[in-house]
């Protein structure tokens, strides 16, 4: 059989095994270059995002400087822009959400990984939690307006009347406010924390658990003194990534937090976040305000990138340590 025949018929039976022909090598080169550039595209995309938002924000940075971050007035008429209330609201709502969602998320992770349920039921429940992550933010917002706010208003106003001297209950809840926003945010953070914490708990070697039981611990001693400390790094990363998610969440917050530029400790007062400031002001903004909003976007980008990079890095580090690869 001649070599011309072999390279011509890739599908003939005699030619199942043979060195690649010239066309095939050309195709291989092309494919490699395409794959290479696609990977490179991701790196360039992130760089381009940083660059573009930075450039757009530049005029506002020049005009407002650092007082943009520490100022608390957002007045388009006077061209005075300050985002301290939005930063405050972002951090306050995200921390509240993390407190609630983190507690529930970690408990659910323990519930799902430490043999509380038979495997089949555990699968069902895991699906319920994962479905929670699939509900669009805007639907949570709608639900929050018509279910959460009416549901918590009586309790909130009772707290305000009886414990109003505490700064946390300093105002009454008239409608949108920090607490309903943080509650809905907590529900949205829960699946993230639960999923990553489950992975962390499942990474703990079976032998470690067996050893704990072998020493005569009860189930809860094993969970609290062996499992949780061993998985602590992963769970911490879960909280960091959940926090990152909460910082950037937009729609539900824009619908529930009240979009009011004030700094208040009260859980029932309307507030604002960076993301919902963007969502509510950007579409109707004029040129000058738009530059200021780009500056706000840059601040949000910097905060979330830092938190997410930290979380991703932590997760990689602890996963590597627990699974024993150096």
């Amino acid at each position: 059989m001649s070599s011309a025949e072999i390279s011509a018929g890739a599908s003939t039976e005699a030619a199942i095994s043979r060195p690649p022909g010239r066309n095939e090598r050309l195709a291989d080169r092309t494919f490699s270059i395409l794959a290479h550039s696609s990977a490179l595209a991701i790196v360039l995309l992130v760089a381009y995002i940083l660059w573009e938002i930075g450039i757009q924000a530049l005029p506002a940075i020049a005009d407002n400087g650092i007082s943009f971050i520490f100022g608390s007035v957002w007045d388009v008429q006077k061209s005075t822009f300050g985002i301290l209330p939005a930063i405050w609201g972002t951090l306050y709502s995200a921390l509240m959400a993390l407190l609630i969602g983190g507690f529930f998320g970690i408990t659910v992770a323990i519930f799902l990984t430490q043999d509380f349920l038979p495997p089949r039921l555990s699968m069902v429940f895991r699906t319920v939690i994962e479905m929670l992550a699939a509900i669009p933010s805007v639907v949570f917002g709608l639900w929050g307006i018509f279910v959460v706010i009416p549901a918590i208003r009586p309790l909130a106003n009772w707290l305000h009347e009886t414990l109003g001297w505490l700064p946390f209950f300093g105002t009454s809840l008239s409608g949108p406010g920090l607490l309903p926003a943080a509650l809905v945010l907590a529900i949205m953070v829960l699946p993230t924390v639960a999923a990553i914490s489950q992975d962390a708990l499942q990474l703990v070697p079976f032998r470690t658990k067996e050893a704990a039981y072998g020493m005569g611990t009860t189930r809860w001693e094993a969970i609290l003194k062996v499992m949780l400390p061993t998985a602590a790094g992963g769970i911490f990363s879960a909280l960091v990534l959940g926090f990152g998610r909460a910082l950037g969440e937009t729609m539900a917050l824009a619908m529930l937090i009240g979009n009011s530029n004030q700094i208040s400790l009260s859980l029932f007062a309307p507030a604002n976040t960076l993301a919902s400031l963007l969502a509510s002001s950007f579409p109707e903004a004029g040129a000058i305000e738009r530059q200021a909003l780009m500056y706000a976007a840059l601040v949000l980008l910097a905060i979330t990138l830092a938190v997410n990079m930290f979380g991703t890095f932590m997760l990689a580090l602890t996963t590597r340590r627990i699974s024993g690869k150096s």
Partner: protein
Amino acid sequence: MRSGLLTAGTWLVALIASVPLISVLYMLIVQGGGRLSAELFTELPPAGFEMGGGFGNAILGTVVMVAIASAISIPIGILAAAYLSDVDPDSKLAQWTRFLAKVLTGFPSILAGVFVYAVVVLAMGRYSALAGGIALAVLMLPTIILTAEEAMKMVPRKMKDAAIGMGCTRSQVIWQIVLPTGLPGILTGVILAVARVAGESAPLLFTALFSNYWLNSLGEPTASLSILIYNFSSMPFENQIELAWAASLVLVLIVLVFNILSRLIGRPKI
């Protein structure tokens, strides 16, 4: 005793954690289910004082923009995943790509809108379906890359080695061995990414904006289900709020169907 309390507490927390999903689904069915009818899918959104109406243009807009996003992000995502898993898994570029893709999964979706506004909307001079689709593509990419890479890595080393031993080039190995074998996993990722962006609204707010009319071209403002829900949720008119619930029901049904589909496809076969 203490152990029993802790166990009871854990059960309680787990039960409370499932309340929101049940409540959301219940509200969607009760509030949105009553409005379900054919005219929802064929008519245009009503003005405040009008009765009836639907959101046919918003469904079409969502489908078109998700299609644009898929057309951009699926090829790039799978090619990048092939690079990460088989072309050059340990290179500096691969490590950076992987890390940045993970970081991008936590990227606030509204910033994708801000970015695309600056790059596409300002350049074109108007809001458009194209800009909306591109913003969604930015959000789809990382999910597709990371899940496709996982799926491709699961293909046994031996199969790849055998193919190389038979004289396959690397691209042939990927086309004829890795992609077909890893297809269920790759599809899972793609469908999950589609489900995620179909419900996104923040990136569309100032890229696609909204429109009360049918889509005529990709270069003009375009309606979407999620923005319709957002706009109508703050309206004082009963009719529009009912439509917001009905639109939520349709949107959640779409998203859940895609989610279940991805589970069925991705379920490990033994």
